[in-house]
C-alpha cells in the first residue's frame, strides 16, 4: 500500500551507484518520470508471481526480498539497502516478479515504471547504460546468494546473515533481528541459530542481548571468499 507519493529530485539520483556517471541532463529527465513512495515497516511492496512493471531504487531504509516455495515455506534471500535496486527489466519482458519485496523499516523508494523508461530510451539510447550497471550489480549479488545457499555450511550462512544485516552506523555493528528471523534468512531453524550464537558469544565474537546481537569481532565472521568479493552495495 502506498501511503504518500512525491516527485524525485535529480540530486537524489546522484547518490545511486547506477546513476553516478550519468550526465545531469539525462538525470533530470529520468528524475522527472520517477515517483517517490513511502512504506511502513512490514508493508508488502510487491508479491512474487505478480506481473512486474517497474524498477525500484531504495532511497532510504531496508527492503527484504523473500521467496516462497509451492508449499508455503519462506526463504529470506537478502536485504536491499540504500542505493540498491530491484524489480523488472524495462527492456525485456520479465513478466512476473521472481520474489516478494517487503519493507523491513521505514522505507522510501524511487520507482521507474517500464513504460516511462521505454519512452525515455526512444529519445536517448544511452540511458540503457544505467540499466547495465543495475543488472551487473544484481548478478554479482545473486551469484553470491547461490553460493551461500549451495556450498556453505549452516554456520557460514548464519555468519553471512549477521554481516549483511548488521547496522554499521551504530558504534558497534548491531543486528536487530530475532533468532527466528535469522533462521528464516539463513535457511535453518531457530534452535540451530541460538546454538551457533551461543558458540560465537563464548568465542567473544558477538554479544547476545534481548532482540539484538552486538558484533564484537566483525572480521571473524567474514566468509572464506570475502577477500575476493566486494560486500558493499556498489
Amino acid at each position: 500500500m502506498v501511503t504518500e507519493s512525491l516527485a524525485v529530485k535529480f540530486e537524489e539520483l546522484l547518490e545511486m551507484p547506477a546513476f553516478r556517471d550519468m550526465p545531469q541532463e539525462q538525470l533530470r529527465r529520468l528524475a522527472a518520470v520517477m515517483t517517490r513512495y513511502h512504506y511502513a515497516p512490514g508493508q508488502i511492496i510487491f508479491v512474487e508471481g505478480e506481473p512486474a512493471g517497474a524498477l525500484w531504487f531504495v532511497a532510504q531504509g531496508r527492503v527484504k526480498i523473500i521467496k516462497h516455495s509451492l508449499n508455503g515455506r519462506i526463504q529470506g534471500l537478502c536485504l536491499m539497502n540504500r542505493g540498491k535496486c530491484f524489480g523488472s527489466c524495462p527492456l525485456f519482458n520479465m513478466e512476473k516478479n521472481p520474489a516478494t519485496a517487503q519493507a523491513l523499516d521505514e522505507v522510501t523508494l524511487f520507482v521507474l515504471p517500464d513504460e516511462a523508461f521505454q519512452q525515455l530510451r526512444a529519445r536517448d539510447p544511452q540511458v540503457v547504460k544505467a540499466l547495465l550497471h543495475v543488472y551487473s550489480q544484481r548478478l554479482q549479488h545473486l551469484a553470491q546468494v547461490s553460493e551461500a545457499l549451495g556450498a556453505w555450511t549452516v554456520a557460514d550462512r548464519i555468519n553471512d546473515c549477521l554481516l549483511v544485516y548488521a547496522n554499521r552506523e551504530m558504534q558497534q555493528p548491531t543486528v536487530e533481528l530475532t533468532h527466528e528471523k535469522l533462521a528464516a534468512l539463513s535457511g535453518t531453524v531457530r534452535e540451530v541459530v541460538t546454538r551457533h550464537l551461543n558458540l560465537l558469544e563464548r568465542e567473544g565474537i558477538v554479544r547476545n542481548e534481548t532482540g539484538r546481537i552486538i558484533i564484537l569481532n566483525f572480521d571473524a565472521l567474514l566468509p572464506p571468499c570475502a577477500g575476493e568479493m566486494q560486500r558493499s552495495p556498489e
Partner: protein
Amino acid sequence: MAVSVELLAQIQLFAALSPRTRRCIAEKAVWAEYAAEAVLYRQGDPPTALYVLQTGRVKLYRQSKDKCQILALPVPGDCLGAESLPTGAPSPYSATTLTPVTAIYLSPDVLQPLLDEHPDFQEVFLRLITDRLKQFVTLVHDLAFRDVTSRLATVLLARAELEGQPHDEGIVFDRLLSQQEFAEMVGTAREVVYRVFKKFEDDGLIRITRRCILVRDLDALRAIALQEAH
C-alpha cells in the same frame, strides 16, 4: 584467426545487431582455442573478456575454502564473462573448460568502447546479463526449496532437454561431469550423488556410463524434479 561478420550473424544473440555494429565487433573480435581444464578467468579477477562459446563446454562456478558451487554449464552459442564490466567490480565467478573449447573473444579493452558507441550492442549485452540473472534466480529457488534428489533430477532433465539426442531407449547426452561435479551443481556431497543416481538407475529412470547418461523415463524424472521440500 580473424572473426568474420558472417560468423557473428549466425550467433542468435547478435542477430538483432545492425550490420554496422556487427562489422565493428568483427574487427575487434579474436578467435580463441583452449585445451580441456583451462581456466578462462577466476572469481575476483578484474572485469573479464566476453566469450561467445563456439564448440566445447565450460563450467561457471564459485569457490570458497574446499567447497565449490557450479552456477551454470553454457552450451555452444552461449556467451559468458564480462558481466561485471558495467560496475567495474571483480568477476562474480570463475570459468574453466570441461572439454577443448573454441570461442570468439572480446577483451574488456575493446568491449567498453564498443558498448559506448553502439546502443544496439548495449542492449544485447544487457540481454546477456539479464538472461544470466534469470538463470541464477532459478538456481537460487532450487537450492532454497528443493531437496537433493529433486535438484539432481532437475539437472538431468534440463540437460536432456537442451543437449539430448534421441536413442532407442530414451534420450542420451554426454556425461561431461564427474560425480564430484554433479555434487557441486546441486550443493551436496559426492556420496549423496552416488546414492541418488543408484536409486534412479535401480528404478529404471536413467543409465549412467563413464561417458554418457541415458534418460529412460523422462516423465518420472520430471515428477521428481517438480517436488519441493516441506
